[in-house]
């Protein structure tokens, strides 16, 4: 089977790259080995949140200070600024409406009540432009009774520490109460399926309106299935309403994944969910084909290939007791040969392994046994040189390297 481009990995970077290519008329096949870590995303994208532990105010201003092997340095500040605008537009084209700009970070609120710098946040979700000057004072935190995935106490304390005056309120409705029969499923996804009809949303609105008192803003856990449900609910509430991220799997991420996948499919892309690349044929400096577990003896052929297979959690990288490697093509990786250096004591301390990934040249081409592969780009979390936890650059690297690789492929 032949298409113009084959992308290994169907998460944020794979889909973004696939969409950018399909929009320009390419036939693209994406191989996705199950759902991606986008499902853990709480509704915000970060571009660059921290350098040396300090929060970054204007990401574009500090890209030049990043280590030379960071993917952004390879792309360059000017191009990053341009790609960042394109990324926001691409999300919007897929129906994902966000606030924010690469010129200045805003603050998102984590489910644990911590404010973190962010680049783009879903319009329905809480987003604070300036943490020193809060947009309002009094917040009513609407907690769903029996809901699993929101540590209400921690969230309320966190908001309080940011300077909000928080009132914690608890509510439920008939639909929500029914859900409690299965305590293990009292989660965001299950709630979202029950809060679809206007009448079920009206019952939520009635409950939270009655509890709103003199709040300036109501916060509700992100348990709505789509923007339509949010708009409907918002139109019924007496105070401004914003959603706040829950523990994963989160509705915001599920929605984004669905919207991107749908958009890619509408553009004629092939999305092979639940299949995985197992090996590739490389001839000289080119990948010829990729074999997948399910297509078996009928490999995927293409002019260009993109590796968007994610980091350790998505199995784009594998660690065994001897080494760290890239499992599909055994590409060169930036990783310490000495196992003792992979981690350091204290899970919250900076960890070397989170910066490991495949080695690339300045155009994000992969390298195998020291030789550049001319038709294989790596994008997203599988890349080395960045740190989604300590630098808050994960989603930015996914989106921007995806678009950079797509530009490169289209320019050929």
């Amino acid at each position, binding site marked *: *089977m*032949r298409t113009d481009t084959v992308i290994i990995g169907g998460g944020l970077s794979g889909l973004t790259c696939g969409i950018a290519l399909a929009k320009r008329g390419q036939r693209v*096949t994406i191989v996705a*080995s*199950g*759902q*991606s870590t986008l*499902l*853990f995303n709480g509704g915000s994208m970060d571009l660059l949140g921290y350098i040396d532990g300090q929060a970054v105010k204007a990401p574009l201003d500090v890209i030049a200070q990043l280590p030379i092997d960071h993917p952004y340095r390879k792309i360059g500040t000017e191009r990053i600024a341009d790609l960042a605008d394109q990324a926001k537009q691409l999300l919007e084209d897929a129906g994902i409406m966000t606030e924010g700009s690469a010129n200045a970070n805003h603050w998102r609120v984590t489910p644990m009540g911590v404010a973190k710098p962010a680049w783009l946040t879903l319009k329905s979700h809480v987003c604070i432009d300036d943490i020193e000057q809060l947009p309002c004072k009094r917040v009513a935190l609407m907690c769903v009774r029996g809901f699993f995935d929101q540590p209400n106490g921690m969230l309320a304390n966190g908001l309080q520490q940011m300077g909000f005056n928080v009132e914690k309120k608890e509510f439920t409705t008939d639909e929500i109460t*029914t*859900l409690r*029969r*299965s305590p*293990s*499923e009292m*989660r965001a*996804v*299950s709630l979202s*399926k029950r809060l679809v009809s206007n009448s079920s949303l009206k019952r939520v609105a009635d409950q939270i309106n009655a509890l709103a008192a003199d709040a300036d803003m109501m916060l509700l856990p992100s348990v709505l299935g789509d923007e339509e449900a949010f708009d409907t609910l918002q139109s019924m509430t007496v105070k401004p309403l914003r959603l706040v991220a829950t523990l*994963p*799997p989160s509705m915001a991420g*599920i929605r984004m994944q*669905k919207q991107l*996948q*749908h958009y890619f*499919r509408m553009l004629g892309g*092939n999305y*092979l*969910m*639940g*299949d*995985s690349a197992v090996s590739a044929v490389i001839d000289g400096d080119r990948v010829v084909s990729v074999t*997948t*577990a*399910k*297509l*078996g*003896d*009928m490999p995927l052929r293409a002019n260009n290939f993109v590796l968007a297979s994610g980091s350790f*959690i*998505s*199995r784009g990288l594998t660690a*065994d*007791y*001897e080494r760290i490697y890239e499992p599909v093509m055994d590409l060169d990786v930036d990783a310490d040969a000495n196992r003792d250096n992979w981690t350091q004591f204290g899970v919250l301390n900076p960890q070397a392994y989170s910066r490991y990934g495949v080695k690339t040249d300045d155009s994000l081409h992969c390298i195998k046994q020291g030789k550049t592969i001319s038709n294989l780009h790596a994008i997203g979390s599988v890349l080395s040189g960045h740190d989604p936890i300590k630098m808050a650059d994960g989603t930015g690297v996914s989106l921007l390297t995806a678009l950079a690789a797509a530009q490169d492929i289209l320019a050929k």
Partner: protein
Amino acid sequence: MADQMQLCNISANNFEQCTKCSICTTVCPVAAVTTDYPGPKQAGPDGERYRLKDPAFYDKALKLCLNCKRCEVACPSGVHIADIIQRARMSAGEGKRASLRDTLLANTDLLGTAANLVAPVANATLGLKPTKLVMHSVMSIHKHRTFPAYSRTKFETWYKRHAAKQQDAYSRHVSYFHGCYVNYNFPKLGQDLVKLMNAAGYGVHLLDKEQCCGVALIANGLYKQARRQARVNAANIRQAVSARHHTVLTTSSSCTFNLRDEYPAILDIDTSDVRDNIMLATRFIYNLVDEEKIKLIFKQDYKRRIAYHTACHMQRMGWQIYSIELLRMIPGLDLVELDQECCGISGTYGFKKENYERSQAIGSTLFKLIEDAHVEAVATDCETCKWQIEMSTGLPVENPVSILADALDVEATRRANMISD
């Protein structure tokens, strides 16, 4: 260090690989509509930990699982969640008798043979209101369901009378596992396959003996019978593959998945030696076209707008791409690929009175997608999806093989493949 460590997964169904990420719970169509089902993570790997300690921890709610396998498709860690659930159901149900209703529903070939003999009577009777009410109350088969119409002539009979002789004239050959639906309900699909393959220069042959693949038997807990039939099928497929060097083609995604993957995973019948030789006809044909071994020429005046629905087991096999890409080759066909949602029928599941409402609730997302697509027909590789979508949307549903056969310019295709008459 490595020599003292367990480096590989040693448990069944990749059970140890579960990282508790909960992604499977986000795609389960059953948990989405009922609180009675604990969801795939709890029913599968989490529950298994308890059941391994003591089988008494088995939860009866596991019978609500559709076995749609969407959890397995979504799992980023390759855990065979649905197989864990099926295995648990099997251990809990082994030795117990299935109800008369379940036995009848499961024996699609027995029911089919009887019904073929009296097809006009059976079709008329099964469609009558009083019959439906009796089935609803006595048999617990929901009154809104209509049994697929039975054909007067079995596919096998048609084949022997009208097709068998001509097949040896071709230089290349395949075998065909037609399945119960083609044999008893809808021989046209089998005829369409013969038409398509003949035009491409392939003779089509039946297996020496074919029995129902047993997918419905497994779903209804009739494991012994399923194993018996699976052994017969495995032996006859093996005969076609090893003695005649045939690839065995199919036109039903569920039969295919069952023959290839459920036989070893659920029934412990090893078919690994022939697994690669069992495939959906669309995969086989796509590959021939892709490798330029055959040409398909389509009618100039064929014009339709059709939506493609990926059946759950089709998605589990990952083969929808072949059906979709083949349909895209038809110049006059405007194809809309639907987002992957379960239709809710899951074989015999939706026929049962107690499951009817849940089945329709599950399918509602898909029905809405179909409605919004503004198409004149739906294409899918699964016959039970067909019944469900036809009943619930009123649109005709066709197998891609039938669409290809309808759109095919047979004469031009025969000429292009240099087949003489």
